[in-house]
């Protein structure tokens, strides 16, 4: 079985690797893991006053599919509103990267990570 071009591209040239100040009010941090395979994924978003995601960063320890899934989702959420980002489904990630069935959970992890980051951002900015 061969991995798709998209997947290999994101794995070899991951976008938006890094981290932001998790204490900042503009930054939402999502930290999720899949203990069964030992993956840990940290995804951060920086949100503007108007609710647009200006920047996104990730750091993932895990397999190639987990790294590619988190890299892809950081690219997708940039420029989107928080609500739009919240509606991204793991199946879209899985399709874009042509993840094999045993790696679907990596895309689930990415979806959960962005949702957790948004929840953290909203929690920090509760009125």
């Amino acid at each position, binding site marked *: 079985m061969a991995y798709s071009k998209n997947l290999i591209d994101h794995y070899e040239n991951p976008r938006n690797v890094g981290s932001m100040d998790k204490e900042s009010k503009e930054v939402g941090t999502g*930290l*999720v*893991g*899949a*203990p*069964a395979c*030992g993956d*840990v994924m940290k995804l951060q978003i920086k949100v503007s006053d108007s609710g647009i995601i200006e920047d996104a960063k990730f750091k993932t320890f895990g397999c190639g599919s987990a790294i590619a899934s988190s890299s892809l989702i950081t690219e997708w959420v940039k420029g989107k509103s928080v609500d739009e980002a919240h509606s991204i489904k793991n199946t879209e990630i899985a399709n874009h990267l042509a993840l094999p069935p045993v790696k679907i959970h990596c895309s689930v992890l990415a979806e*959960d*990570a962005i949702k957790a980051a948004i929840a953290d951002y909203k929690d920090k900015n509760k009125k």
Partner: protein
Amino acid sequence: MEVIIPCWNCQTDTKVVDFRCSICNKIQNIRKTNPYDIFNLKQCYLIDNEELEIKYFQLQNIFHPDKFINSAEKEKEISAYESSNINNAYNLLLNNVDRIKILLKLKGYKANPNNEESFTDKDLLEEIMELQNRCMSIENENEKVKIKTEIIEKIRIIELEINSNFEKEKIPEIKNLSVKLSYLEKIKKNLN
């Protein structure tokens, strides 16, 4: 070890000594369904690896297919089945994460109800990420040995905690510790 079971060859209840029928001397199935019973071990989380190894060799010495090259088909079949059964059970018991699942099941608990869901305990994930960050920036052999020693010590402490929680039947605690243990084992493996 002596038990009375029906022999597949004699078709009668016979005494079985060391897995052989005392009348016709044919090899018999182990007839044990869980790894602890196969090796006749007490159902505790912490096990004596040396004792397990000795029992493993004793059993393979009885069942290994090499010993049945000139035997009847049925004996070959039993030997092939049981020796692979013994290997599986041995590897499961050697694995400190698998052993949790086996014991939970034996005690009537579901092993991992949320296996498919993402794990979200922030403190634990941060600790693991921190550890992984350190592993990524290892520069020399000394540092690697130091981190590895640290991880092995963490694992040893968790194993003790799991053992005492099993004794007290504190199941939710065991499940959290088992997550931490699988992460640490994974990091340790990647360090090799």
